[in-house]
């Protein structure tokens, strides 16, 4: 992948001189308003990726505050004692009206779920890091359709505005799943639910168009010399999830549209009072929302593959099985939606979906074993990205393994819709995707902004996040097996101690995340200038400067080695003292 001048064609020499004096993509071009206008109208994938990144982080903050409010209510729930006293003073916004306070809690958990799913985790890796990295990793100047990319960003922006408008209007209490007939009958005299669902509908187009863009980019814009199996695994997973984005998202579009029509015009599709079928809604909803779980986790898996490989200085173990496992997960993801409905569908459907669900575990297990084997005989750096990668391995494995008793029918009848499920999907979605995302922001932060962050505060934040996360969510497994249903504003006394521990954990988690935020701001202002390749990476983004120049590379790059050939290729811009290579194989033999 190194850029070799002798290989560049005569055509490129013209570019050579032209590109040398161009600044980084962050260099302001013109005054303040001109710069703002430049960002608003940019078709540069890097700027769009950065705008996505900060929008997503802002939404993550909003969703996180809602999560803290949820935990605050559960620390000391509002309820009436036998003496008629109302307890739970911290969340008691509506005086002695317990039902109104419950309703407030319901709005907060819906807010948390809807924001985190549709506005944070689904777009998180593809739209922000994916947008920034995918073209550079392929050696391209931009995505295949740069203007469409900007259009996707504006769709995301306006879709989020719908959702925020709904929140400002008072929020919705449907749960992020919008199950009918509750969602078609609650707040019947208000527009909030319609606006929120409309927001989800609009956001879907952003996801579809980004996916389409990535698929075409991967097919058409790989640098000369880069075959399918020379791509970094992040690109493979972005490609696999882009397929799901394009194929599954239209289904949620149709479903939300039907929901809006049912609410506004009373057509009877889902509400039995109008002759509809509420189970049909669940099928429609999960036909999208199960594959979407893999839109969320697949790119996270790709990030972890790259982080582990670079920081252990080891070729990823079983590259091809990793690539095919990604595609395998994509394929299976479309036929397992029924496992969200073991308690509402018939026996035959439940049996078939249970069997299919276990299929997902196989490619996932392969990936975990491959990451594990990659560490063997490596040179493992202990820094923030690697700490996050190891946290991911720990947490995601718990998330995956706790899926077993949920996939098995007999045990699922107990665990379904309990706190066990809540803990399980937080271990996968937050312990998996978000942990990978935060680790990856640290890994590529020097590349994106040209500044180094404080490694000490990065590791401190990671340790706090890891401890806080486990304290918050491991207790929820125990509550679930003990019989605590999810989405409860109050609970019977038996669960009090576990809820208290869980809430204290959420505070530790929040402190860890705030430390990261502070560290990032500090690095932008005071951080040391980042070298082009601080970690000794071999994929193409480490060949260009930090931050990259406007057109990514000074001249069109050519792939001359794989992204993980750490044993044989000196990484670009690195000192052989700092990143030494192992002894060459005798006789120049090629390693397998």
């Amino acid at each position, binding site marked *: 992948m190194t850029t070799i001048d002798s290989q560049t064609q005569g055509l490129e020499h013209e570019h050579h001189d032209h590109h040398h004096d161009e600044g980084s993509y962050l260099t302001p071009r013109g005054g303040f308003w001109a710069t703002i206008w430049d960002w608003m109208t940019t078709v540069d994938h890097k700027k769009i990726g950065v705008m996505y990144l900060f929008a997503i982080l802002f939404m993550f903050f909003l969703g996180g505050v809602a999560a803290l409010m949820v935990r605050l209510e559960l620390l000391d729930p509002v309820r009436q004692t*036998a003496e008629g006293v109302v307890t739970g003073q911290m969340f008691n916004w509506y005086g002695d009206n317990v*039902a109104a306070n419950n309703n407030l809690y319901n709005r907060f958990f819906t807010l948390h779920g809807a924001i985190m799913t549709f506005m944070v985790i689904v777009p998180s890796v593809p739209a922000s890091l994916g947008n920034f990295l995918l073209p550079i990793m392929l050696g391209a100047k931009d995505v295949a359709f740069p203007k469409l990319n900007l259009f996707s960003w504006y769709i995301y922006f306006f879709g989020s505005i719908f959702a925020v408008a709904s929140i400002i209007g008072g929020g919705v209490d449907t*749960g992020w799943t919008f199950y009918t007939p*509750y969602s078609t009958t609650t707040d019947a005299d208000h527009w909030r639910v319609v606006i929120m669902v409309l927001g989800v509908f609009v956001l879907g187009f952003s996801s579809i168009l980004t996916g389409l863009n990535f698929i075409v980019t991967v097919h058409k814009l790989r640098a000369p010399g880069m075959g399918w199996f020379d791509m970094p695994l992040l690109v493979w997973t972005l490609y696999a999830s882009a397929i799901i984005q394009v194929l599954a998202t239209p289904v949620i579009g149709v479903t939300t549209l039907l929901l809006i029509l049912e609410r506004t015009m009373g057509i009877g599709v889902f509400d039995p009072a109008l002759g509809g079928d509420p189970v049909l809604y669940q099928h429609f909803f999960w036909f999208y929302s199960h594959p979407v779980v893999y839109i969320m986790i697949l790119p996270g898996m790709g990030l972890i593959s790259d982080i582990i490989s670079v920081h252990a200085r080891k070729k990823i173990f079983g590259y091809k099985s990793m690539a095919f496992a990604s595609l395998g997960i994509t394929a299976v993801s479309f036929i397992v939606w029924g496992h969200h409905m073991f308690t509402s569908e018939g026996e035959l459907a439940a049996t078939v979906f249970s069997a299919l669900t276990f299929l997902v575990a196989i490619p996932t297990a*392969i990936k975990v074993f491959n990451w594990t084997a990659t560490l063997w005989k490596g040179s493992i750096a202990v820094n923030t990205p690697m700490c996050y990668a190891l946290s991911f391995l720990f947490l995601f494995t718990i998330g995956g393994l706790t899926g077993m008793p949920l996939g098995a029918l007999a045990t699922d009848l*107990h665990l379904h819709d309990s706190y066990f499920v809540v803990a399980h999907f937080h271990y996968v979605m937050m312990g998996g995707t978000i942990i990978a995302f935060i680790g990856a922001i640290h890994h590529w932060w020097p590349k994106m902004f040209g500044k180094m962050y404080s490694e000490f505060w990065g590791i401190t934040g990671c340790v706090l996040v890891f401890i806080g996360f486990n304290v918050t969510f491991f207790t929820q497994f125990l509550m679930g097996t003990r*019989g605590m249903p999810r989405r409860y504003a109050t609970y019977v006394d038996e669960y009090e101690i576990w809820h208290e521990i869980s809430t204290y954990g959420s505070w530790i988690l929040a402190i860890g995340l705030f430390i990261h935020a502070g560290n990032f701001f500090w690095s932008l202002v005071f951080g040391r200038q980042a070298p082009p390749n601080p970690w000794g990476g071999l994929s193409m983004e480490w060949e260009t400067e930090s931050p990259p120049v406007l057109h990514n590379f000074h001249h069109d790059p050519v792939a001359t080695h794989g992204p993980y050939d750490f*044993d044989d290729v000196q990484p670009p811009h690195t000192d052989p003292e700092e990143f*030494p290579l192992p002894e060459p194989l005798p006789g120049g033999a090629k390693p397998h």
Partner: protein
Amino acid sequence: MIAPLFIDGLLRDWFFGDRAYSDTSAYSDDLYMFIFWVCAFVFIGLNAFYVLCLVKFRRKPGVPQQRSSSHSTTLEITWTVLPTILLVVFFFRGFWGYLDKVVVEAQAEQLDLEAYKWGWEMTYPNGAVSLVSDRIDPGQLNEYPIFVVPEDWPVQLRMTSRDVIHSFWIPDLRQKFDVFPNRYTSYQFRMDPLEEEDRARANDAFPSGYRDHTLFCAEYCGDSHSEMAAIIRVASREDYANWVVTGGVELDKLTPVEAGAILYTVKGCAQCHSVDGSDNTGPTWRNAFGYERQFSNAPAGIVDDNYIRESILVPGAKVAEGYPNQMPSYQGKVNDFELNALIAYIRSLSDRAPTSLIDEVQGEPESTEEEPQASLNRPDTDDNT
């Protein structure tokens, strides 16, 4: 052999808090523990490997990584096939346990369960409904209905919902199923027999003793979702049959106000309407009758018998200002006797209610100051603990 079994037992207690109370739930607990031990083995093995790698291969300045193979067909096939075999075992054990839970035994006792926002109503084969309630947590105000079921006898619930989707979950049975409007779903179980400590609770209503289990709604259904619980009381077969025949109150033997006070909890009115003047999802019943009320979709009017009747049968016709139009219709859910009893009860809570000549002559006026909880008598079950 003893030590692992001991640890297994400790962990079971820790995970589940209480034992499983039927054969099918004991099976699924066994399966859970089986999956747990397999997963724990894999998880600990993986993490031991990470620690080993971190110790052995931590980066040292100037020392490169060691060369090693980056792929191994044998290894990769092994870790594909072994998990697959385990997954097949998990699936089949889960499937068998599921069949045991969902297939109905012959001769099962058929009970009708109706869910609504936010409560449960059980109808027994003779048409009786449960009219008794108790607290789950002694210190809290909420009362939950008590449903009696026979010990060691197959029971099938035919479940349906009046409004939105609910889910019927008895954690001690490790089993739940969703409850839908406009269709029936089924839930079946065979409760373990009573034990010595259960028999010790013997009282007049349950001479052979009883055992209580909590049931929750597990599908989100709105404001009081978290207060949508009930108590499943396991009694001997004889006690069950006697309780169903005589234990339910015969409403027509009571005065309309007394009957209305019972219906107030049984029909779920209490979930949204207070009787002590405090605010809730719906307007309070204290001092409602005879007072003027503002409506969000109709001109103001006096709360009278016809308005109350209309509000029960067609709740959306006149919606009290400041409250959501959320109440489900009780058309077909209450008969005329029950309707009159509820109206009588609401009247009794108002200081503008007309008094009866009988009361004045006999000198025993219906007390409007009486606390509603006190009027909620619990016939035949004086077993408050």
